[in-house]
């Protein structure tokens, strides 16, 4: 594209061309100061020219690869992405507001720490309508262990609806707010539940998800409870296991980006034998640890449950305590200094 086609005043256009800047690509790499000096115009004018040139090329004509984005746009997009609350504000705080969409988040911990509880909580919370600061989405729950209990999901859904009603009650005093339309039954209806009984079924289901999500809009979270179970049974060929797993991880990553949804993979812990002693580590080995964007580890500290951010490209390492109540995940009540930044 040529500079003569930029919507500029004729005097400035003339100056530009006489200084030798005839094509857009010739000015795109310049700073406004350089351009002002070379063309002999004010810096503000030069800045406007660059802005215009940038806009023109933003139409894709000069993009090297179709669909490429710059970091600025990505940051903007990321900030506007909604996050799924965990119903525990301390946990939300260290997660930067909740479980982020477009990412694959892995959550692991010992049996009984509350992995399944977080899974059920998220599949309910993703449905909180937009008026209440939620996503108004639907959930896919892939159950490989048989730990999903409908009665527990119903309990958490009821508590969630109650909380929203209480919130509207409060809002009514100040504003006119909409009535809560959701019923606990609707919440259960919007959780697509898949029970998977073998690893072949699991692989097949993950391959099918793309189609399923295209047909069912509004799926905003995919929860796998747990990713591990069928892969710890009898895989004599560990290399094959790694291949199958990393292919699955790639599929999840793709789904997360394509439909801008959150993928939450629950993982077990295992003991790892290093240098003559056993240590605790998330299952599935070292190569798997690259497969997820964020990693959260749940652990006991005394009588309290804690979550720790083990890996994340954008969040600082931090830990926070939480409790599992009959109403679902909540803040731990005991201490005021619950969030510890490291």
């Amino acid at each position, binding site marked *: 594209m040529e500079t003569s086609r930029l919507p500029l005043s004729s005097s400035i256009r003339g100056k530009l061309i006489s200084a030798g800047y005839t094509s857009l690509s010739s000015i795109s790499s310049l700073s406004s100061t350089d351009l002002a000096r070379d063309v002999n115009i004010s810096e503000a004018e030069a800045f406007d020219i660059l802005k215009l040139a940038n806009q023109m090329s933003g139409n894709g004509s000069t993009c090297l690869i179709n669909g490429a984005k710059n970091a600025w746009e990505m940051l903007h997009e990321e900030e506007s992405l909604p996050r799924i609350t965990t119903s525990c504000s301390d946990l939300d705080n260290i997660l930067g507001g909740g479980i982020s969409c477009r990412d694959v988040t892995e959550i692991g911990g010992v*049996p*009984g720490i509350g992995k399944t509880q977080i899974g059920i909580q998220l599949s309910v919370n993703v449905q909180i309508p937009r008026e209440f600061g939620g996503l108004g989405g639907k959930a896919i729950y892939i159950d490989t262990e*048989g730990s999903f209990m409908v009665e*527990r999901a119903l309990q958490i859904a009821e508590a969630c609806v109650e909380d929203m009603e209480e919130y509207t009650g409060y809002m009514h005093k100040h504003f006119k707010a909409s009535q809560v339309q959701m019923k606990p039954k609707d919440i259960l209806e919007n959780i697509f539940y898949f029970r998977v009984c073998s690893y072949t079924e699991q692989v097949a289901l993950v391959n099918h998800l793309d189609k399923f999500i295209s047909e069912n809009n509004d799926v905003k979270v995919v929860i796998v409870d747990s990713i591990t179970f069928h892969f710890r049974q009898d895989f004599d060929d560990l290399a094959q296991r790694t291949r199958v797993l990393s292919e699955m991880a790639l599929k999840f990553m793709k789904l997360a980006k394509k439909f801008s949804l959150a993928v939450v993979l629950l993982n077990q812990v295992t003991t790892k034998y290093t240098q003559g002693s056993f240590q605790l580590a998330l299952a599935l080995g070292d190569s798997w640890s690259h497969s997820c964007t964020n990693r959260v580890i749940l652990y006991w500290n005394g009588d309290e449950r804690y979550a720790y951010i083990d890996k994340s490209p954008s969040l600082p390492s931090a830990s926070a305590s939480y409790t599992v109540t009959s109403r679902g995940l909540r803040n731990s009540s005991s201490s005021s200094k619950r969030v510890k930044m490291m």
Partner: protein
Amino acid sequence: MKPQSLVQQSPTNRKLTTGCETIDGCLRGGFPCDSLTEIVAESGCGKTQLCLQLSLCAQLPISNGGLDGSALYLHSEFPFPFRRLHQLSRSFHLSNPGIYADHNDNPCDHVFVQNVHSVDHLFDIMPKIDAFARNSKNRFPLKLIILDSVAALFRSEFDNTPSDLRKRASLFFKISGKLKQLANKFDLAVVITNQVTDFVESSDGLSGLRVGNLRYLCSSGRRVVPALGLAWANCVNSRFFISRSDDTICKERSEKERAQRRLDIVFSPHLPGSSCEFMITREGICGV
């Protein structure tokens, strides 16, 4: 592939009553179907008593908290307490005469007993269980599988080396995977018992690893942990712990002192951590 509807299902998983109101209340109705439940206790706490009672209660009609089905009892600890089962079945028959057609129909006829010597043997009979559950067309279809105990299968065969431990762990997952498959396919309740080992404070701190709420894991005044370690803990859906306290409380009805036992929920996806107390009488388990 289609998702299952959560609404059309009954609002809760079906539960199998234990025949004891106190424990049922604590477990919100009993042992859930389509789920693996583990009972951990040291010997003499009443694991087997509870299992025997469950295998009879499975025959109760659904309206009474039963499953209207028969039970398969896989035992790896010998000998099988036939005498005790017979004793329990008699009182069970007397208190529930309505569900049996005539006097020849004995509750014991609907409890199938199979011994298991080794892990391989268990895998051998798994396909047979599948066929058995599919073909049981009589009045009581198979609704409950009990494995008593899983620890006995593993206690002798494996060394404490990393490679053996890894092999052992993958067998755990295989057993659990197969059982969960059966449980899902036929809507069975699966109950597995496990032994305990003494808690040893070690330098690497791993045996003190906290799985669920370990606070209560104290039996006969000792600190104990469930056998088979962390890998096995990942394989079950719910874990209950039974302990006995040596102080005896109940002297009514018979002169014999009875030890009081206590059932704790270590972890479970649908239950809060809680506990209840019970004792074992001639008629079976009853709450205190």
